């Protein structure tokens, strides 16, 4: 006897509201429908009512996890319109913050993922590591979330002593290499809950247009940092991580290896921090009429910004397409034929960010 089962919007597995309605026969899911829109705040419209400085603060609150990516991408769009060239040091600092943010986002995800499969001790280990990242971010920016580092034309804060952050990176690389990655890839409990679960084939990945680690775990080698290098990625050299399996295990491995790559990028950026100014412009920004589209690689995949200016005090239009917007619908093909108990880890494996999606 088939029955339908609503999971959410107030979620047992995730902190944010979204709803998955599944049709089951016994324990097996036959189809699923995803509903979003429970935390809509109208940020795109609000952005048209605020001036260019205020919009950065506003855009930073699109997402609670990848806040810096949004503010940074918006600033890059405004810089493109105004033809401002970013100073080298500012580009490096932005790269460091973006990669630290990726680390903290992926670690948060790994912790929540471990929790979803009932692996609490791994959750504790992962969150101990994440705390090192948060401390580093706080030491650089003065805040654990919403760092407020970006302004149009550069960054607001310097990293005066880059070498002071290297021990945290060493501890992180050690923790990832010795505890997190071996546990996720060798522990029988973790393997039983992730291997072969929630498969998304390469063809399905193309069809559902997924981005970021979800796409890379299905064998699609797409990463804006490699395809269209921005900031300092071209200088630092970047290697993307791709897995062909397409299951939850592959998504875990892709994110884990990406964290190792992030640690390497941050270390190289800290060691090669060029001298120079932090900002290309002084005072309040003046953005002439024009429009720009910018793509950056957020922790969850490609973030797309379209910003239009009519030369006034506020942007004429800010269009945001976040990676979760395309990744969340892909939960539907992933859960088909899977057991109901695996629904929670499968939807967590795309790392859905609902506040980004709803804006």
């Amino acid at each position, binding site marked *: 006897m088939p029955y339908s089962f609503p999971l959410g919007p107030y979620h047992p597995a995730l902190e944010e509201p979204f709803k998955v309605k599944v049709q089951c026969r016994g324990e097996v899911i036959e189809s699923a429908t995803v509903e979003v829109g429970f935390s809509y705040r109208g940020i795109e419209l609000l952005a048209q009512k605020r001036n260019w400085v205020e919009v950065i603060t506003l855009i930073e609150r699109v997402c609670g996890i990848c806040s810096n990516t949004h503010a940074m991408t918006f600033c890059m769009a405004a810089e493109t319109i105004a033809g401002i060239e970013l100073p080298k040091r500012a580009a490096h600092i932005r790269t460091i913050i973006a990669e630290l943010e990726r680390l903290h986002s992926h670690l948060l995800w790994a912790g929540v993922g471990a929790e979803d499969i009932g692996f609490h001790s791994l959750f504790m280990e992962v969150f101990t590591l994440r705390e090192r990242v948060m401390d580093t971010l706080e030491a650089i920016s003065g805040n654990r979330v919403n760092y*407020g580092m970006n302004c149009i034309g550069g960054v607001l804060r310097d990293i005066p002593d880059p070498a002071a952050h290297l021990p945290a990176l060493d501890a992180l690389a050690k923790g990832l290499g010795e505890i997190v990655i071996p546990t996720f890839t060798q522990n029988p409990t973790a393997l039983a809950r992730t291997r072969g679960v929630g498969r998304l084939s390469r063809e399905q990945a193309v069809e559902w247009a997924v981005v970021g680690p979800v796409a890379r775990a299905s064998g699609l080698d797409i990463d804006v940092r490699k395809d269209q290098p921005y900031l300092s990625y071209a200088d630092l050299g970047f290697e993307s991580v791709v897995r062909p399996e397409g299951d939850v295990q592959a998504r875990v491995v892709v994110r884990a290896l990406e964290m190792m790559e992030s640690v390497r990028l941050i270390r190289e950026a800290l060691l090669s921090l060029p001298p120079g100014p932090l900002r290309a412009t002084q005072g309040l920004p003046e953005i002439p009429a024009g429009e720009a589209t910018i793509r950056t690689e957020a922790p969850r995949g490609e973030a797309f910004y379209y910003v239009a200016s009519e030369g006034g005090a506020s942007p004429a239009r800010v269009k945001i397409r976040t990676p979760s917007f395309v990744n969340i619908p892909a939960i539907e093909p992933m859960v088909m034929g899977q057991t109901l108990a695996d629904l929670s880890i499968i939807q967590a494996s795309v790392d859905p960010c609902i506040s980004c999606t709803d804006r």
Partner: protein
Amino acid sequence: MAMLKTILGNLLRPSRTRAPADMPVVPPTYRGALTHDAGRCTACGTCAFVCAPKAIHFTQEPGVSVSWHFFIGQCSFCGLCEQNCPTRAIHLRADVPGSMNSASGDGLRLESVIRLQPCTRCGAAHVPLPAATMDALWAAGADEAERGYCPDCRRWAASARLRTAFIPDGAVAEGGRHDR
């Protein structure tokens, strides 16, 4: 056997929970309690302009004072007011900010009154320049009498200087009061 090893290891190792003593140090860039120095404020309104959640606003009592207001319930601690203040009147210290109970109701409210001064030339009430700014501006050797001028009279004095530089023999009659 493996479990026994883990238990023994855990017994011999110190606690991994952070004690209050090994909390991370508060970074100097920490954005905490906000302070405003009325003596440095020129009431230019830049802080209110850059404040996205509108936690800062100005009120005025015409001819007497301008007041700077801050409500912590709306503050997002982005630090843009401090970054953009041209006279460094606003500072976010590394202390814990005051209580913030709700976005609309009670919570810390700061008010800082900037007294207006009469212009020594035309008598119009104006916000005086901060002492540090004045010292920097007058270091070049401008007329000391101009220190008490309002912005309009300062502008008038500057253009009068320019005029006499071009037409030195006083061909232009002494300018009257500017329109108010």
